[in-house]
């Protein structure tokens, strides 16, 4: 299957489900850029995040499988209790190593790994959350020439995550969810 040259990686914790759904729900099933979504979840909990997303978005929502290959039309959900990494051949690797920022999956881990593979073609989006996870990863994406987007902290359900990112990446783009959504749609037109 053809894979896109761009990649969207999105992360959030508290308030992140709601925020990511608002961004994703109107994206068409034919949306050409694969999207990886890392949300902090409770460990050892059988989540049906996939079901929750499936019902509400047009794109296909799947929990990431080991060695699965990125393809357009999908929102890839980080599984509970695993870190998600990306290989050069655009396949996923999973990892159960130490928690990062008290989290596994950690947004930092996936953001950095994505930027190592997609470089300036990485679009990182950090949403609402009560954690500092994701800031370093987003900054890493930015340093590689990729795009760093942060949900407007005024709008975020919990602003710790956005504020922490803005703090270390002063030049990031701060947007409300609706803007993020239309921005992603505009990438579609090019």
């Amino acid at each position, binding site marked *: 299957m053809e894979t896109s040259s761009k990649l969207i990686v999105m992360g959030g914790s508290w308030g992140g489900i709601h925020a990511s759904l608002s961004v994703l729900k109107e994206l068409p099933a034919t949306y050409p850029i694969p999207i990886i979504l890392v949300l902090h979840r409770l460990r*050892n909990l*059988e989540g049906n995040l996939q079901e929750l997303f499936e019902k509400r978005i047009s794109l296909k929502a799947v929990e*990431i*499988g*080991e*060695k699965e290959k990125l393809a357009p039309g999908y929102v890839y959900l980080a*599984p509970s*209790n*695993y870190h998600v*990494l*990306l*290989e*050069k051949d655009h396949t996923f*690797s*999973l*990892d*159960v*190593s*130490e928690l990062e920022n008290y989290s596994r999956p950690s947004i930092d*881990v996936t953001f*950095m*790994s994505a930027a*190592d*593979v997609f470089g300036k073609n990485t679009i990182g989006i950090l949403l609402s959350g009560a954690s500092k996870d994701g800031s370093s990863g987003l900054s890493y994406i930015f340093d590689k020439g990729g795009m760093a987007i942060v949900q407007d902290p005024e709008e975020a359900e919990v602003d710790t995550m956005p504020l922490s990112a803005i703090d270390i990446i002063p030049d990031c783009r701060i947007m409300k969810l609706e803007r993020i959504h239309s921005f992603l749609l505009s990438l579609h037109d090019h």
Partner: protein
Amino acid sequence: MKFSDDAHFEQDVEVLIREMHTQYGYDFNGYARASVYRRIKRFLTHRHLSSLEDLRKALMGDSYFFENFLQEITVNVTEMFRDPSFFLSLRNNVLPILSTYPFIKIWDAGCSTGEELFSLAILLQEADLLGRTKIYATDINQKVLKQAKEGIFSAANMTGYTAGYYASGGTQEFSRYYNSNYGSVKFDSSLIKNVVFYPHNLASDTSFNEFHLVLCRNVLIYFNKELQERVFKLFDESLVSLGYLALGKKETLSMSQISSSYNPVDKLNRIYRKTD
């Protein structure tokens, strides 16, 4: 910490992998790279090494340093009753069948620091099978084997482990299995009376016995497809007919060549049984 451009870093890692193989006999060529890169960068940062060249020199000149590197580059993070539903399934679907054998042999491959091993031993004890079971606990890493033998874990984790124990169908007082002491707990060493600990490298070593159950959870995720295939064949050679293979929650046998001779016993919990 900044690293020189990625292509350079990645090439240097390949050189390092070849040299470690030549000098120490450890072959990391079949390891999935994204995780290797991350572990190496992490190690460089922790050890305040500024370049891969410094790391290379230290590794080649000092076998003790290499041992430490080995421990940090391979992921040894584990927990008791990780995925309680898996252990519940083992209790309900596998142990009753194993109990029909007069003597049971189990291989815990990649046992790391022993949390899974002790979880397994507790299950066997409660099924009254521990006395006639021999467990072979192996890992690439000798240091973690030593830790596993001690059975000492941080007390801070016990709340989670206790919850995991009950979620996996445990009915006893969990605290009967260990003694607390200064922020750590020591598990009853009689649980591992019939365990033999061996260094074994899945990437290069061969089959060494026949087992009724092979557990290898969250190890294969670090390997590329070729190495995974090698290990599946190794497990296949090491399992008796009608033996069980248990993998990690996100690991699957379905892409493997051996999958045709295995039936899923519990698809969700990745427990398979050899058909002939």
